[in-house]
């Protein structure tokens, strides 16, 4: 049975009983078979098969994408949880270390160390005062950090804004007069 014969099934088997004995006969036979196949709806079946395979492929693709995104989100979620634990731990360690340093630099410890090193408290009668141009007496400490506080990554609009929000914002921005638009 020919390939086309297999595809079209029993309805196209009847012509196979006669065997042509030259090339022209084969050609005529093939043309006839194609015509028969067309008449029997082969094209219709092939389209359905292709459509079915395409749907399956799409579903598989979507499933793969979903799994990928879900897995990535899960991993990111775990990383967030882990990083948050690290942050808390590091903050505790920082506080602990600061207290340890303060203990090592406490007044009593420093006095003991100074005495061991041979220092003695100054006698006020031995002090000499001189004028130092440009000198200003020390002022109480300022504890404000020069570092700019970093905002959480997720506070950026990219993480909170929906597509609708974004489009609305773009439309609103586009409708602004040129003079008010941000450059």
């Amino acid at each position, binding site marked *: 049975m020919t390939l086309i014969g297999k595809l079209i099934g029993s309805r196209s088997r009847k012509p196979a009983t006669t065997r042509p004995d030259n090339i022209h006969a084969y050609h005529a036979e093939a043309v006839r078979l194609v015509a028969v196949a067309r008449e029997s709806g082969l094209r219709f079946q092939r389209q359905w098969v292709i459509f079915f395979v395409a749907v399956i492929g799409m579903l598989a693709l979507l499933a793969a994408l979903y799994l990928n995104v879900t897995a990535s989100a899960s991993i990111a979620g775990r990383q967030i949880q882990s990083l948050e634990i690290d942050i808390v731990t590091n903050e505790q360690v920082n506080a602990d270390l600061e207290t340890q340093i303060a203990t090592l630099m406490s*007044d009593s410890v420093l006095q003991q160390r100074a005495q061991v090193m041979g220092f003695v408290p100054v006698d*006020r009668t031995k002090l000499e005062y001189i004028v130092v141009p440009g000198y200003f007496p020390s002022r109480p400490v300022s504890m404000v950090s020069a570092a700019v506080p970093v905002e959480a990554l997720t506070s950026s609009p990219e993480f909170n804004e929906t597509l609708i929000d974004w489009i609305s914002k773009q439309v609103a921005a586009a409708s602004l007069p040129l003079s008010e638009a941000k450059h």
Partner: protein
Amino acid sequence: MKKTYQVRSLSLSMLFAVLGSVIVFQIIRIQNSPEAALFLQQGARYAGSLETLFPERGQIYDRNGNLLAGNRTVYEVGVSLADVRNPNSIALALSVTLGLDYDKTLNSIKNPPTGTVYLVLDDFVDSDKARALQDLQQQLVDQYKAAGDASLAGLGFRAHLQRSYPENSLASNVIGFVNREGHGYYGVEEKYNDLLAGLPVTVWVPEDPNRAEELPKVPKGADLILTINREIQAMVETELQKGVTDSGAQAGTAVVIDPHNGEILAMASTPEMNLNDFWQYGSIYKNASEFNRAVSMQYEPGSVFKILTMAAAIDTGTVAPHTTYLDTGYFEIGGSYIYNWDQGAWGTQDMIGCLEHSLNVCLARVASLMGKDQFYTYMQRFGIGHKTGIDLAMEADGRLKTPTDSDWYEVDLGTNSFGQGVAVSPIQLITAASAIANDGKMVYPHVLYGMVSNGHQYNTPSQTLGTPISPQTARTVTEMLATALEDGKSVARVDGYRIAGKTGTAQIPGPNGLYDPTLTNASFIGWGPVDDPKFLVFVWLDRPISSGWASYVASPVFHNIVEKLVVLLGIPPDDVRHQLTGQ
């Protein structure tokens, strides 16, 4: 044959269809059953947990940024009951390392309360001990791996922060302490507890990583910067303790304040307490007012009060520095007699001599001349009998009887004029005296220099509580006090520095209202340099034994403090200062 297969196929199809229908029916039934809500609750219970995030308690610094109160890591030790393999080993390890009772621990692990999953066995364990336990746990896991018996399996550690005080007892009376529940008591820790503690946040933490969200940032409590200078505080505590020991006093108090802005540079009170051992509070103090006598204890101040009477008299024009009177040794007022401290008559005296010799008769006469209305108006302007509003917990009110009170008598005008029959807290007296040291302006005493929150520092502005006397009066009284110290060759003086001050020796009233003949409160208040006061120092020794007189026990303490204070504050002697100013 073909028919048989058809029957079988049909039967199987029917069976599976029925089974499927039953399953679908059961799903729908369960979802709509009365227990559905319960199932949902159970599901939700395991979907995550509510966790309260406690912010780190704010730190406390002195004015130069030295840490006075911080936080350190400690551990909660417990067991996950489902993972415990060998309760005996855990009980033994905890009894050896942490000193827990072996039997109690073992019993707790073997017979936990019903429904307990995790059992806390100890808390606030030092990191050294927790680390030792963790190391032991790991060693035993390695050793017992072959036998399949992880000896300390199930033992868990949870780190958290606990208040810690690197300077131990330094400035303990100002700082206060925090108990294990995280609540501040006394001093700054109590007064600013809400600021220091911050706001805890309760959040839902899902188990599902897909629903994991960034936890909200819990800002730590505000950091506080105090006006206290650590070095001055340590020096004042040392000198005060020396004074208490030398005089045999029951307790003592010393305060150093900047009279221009009310910043308290040092505030010491004995006995002190190591704040890291706060549970010893009960064995150190008999009552709450002893924790910080400078703020919470009120007493009859005695002769140091005379500076206020004299200031009022000068301000009203009742007397002038060189107004004289004849001291006969007694003064009759309200049917009672007022005598001098030595029961003697001092002859003709001016107002400087009156202060120099601390003559009760003089001040009673001056108050009488001034009149009760003016006298009490001025005392109220000085804030006597009212809280100053200092930012420390448990400030005492004091008591000033006035003519409108039912228990006030005419003689009270006389006794109040030299500091008897009136109760003040040291900080009240210091605040009142700041008006004399600061050109008539009475400053608000405070220990908070600034607060740091969310990266911003908010400094406390200096405030004036009032102007009870004129600048001229303030300068006149200061000059009178300085001259009195110099003429009297007081031991309080410090060579090279002109200082104004006054002693105060007050008898102590007993429970029956009569004054004890032997026990006294000895105090000294002074400021300097006279032409531009940079410090105001107050010393009070409670019931000194070596001598009851303030000039013998309190003045030396004042002298010793000022002698070191001028070095720490970088105040040159007056002549050098004038010379440098001229350059």
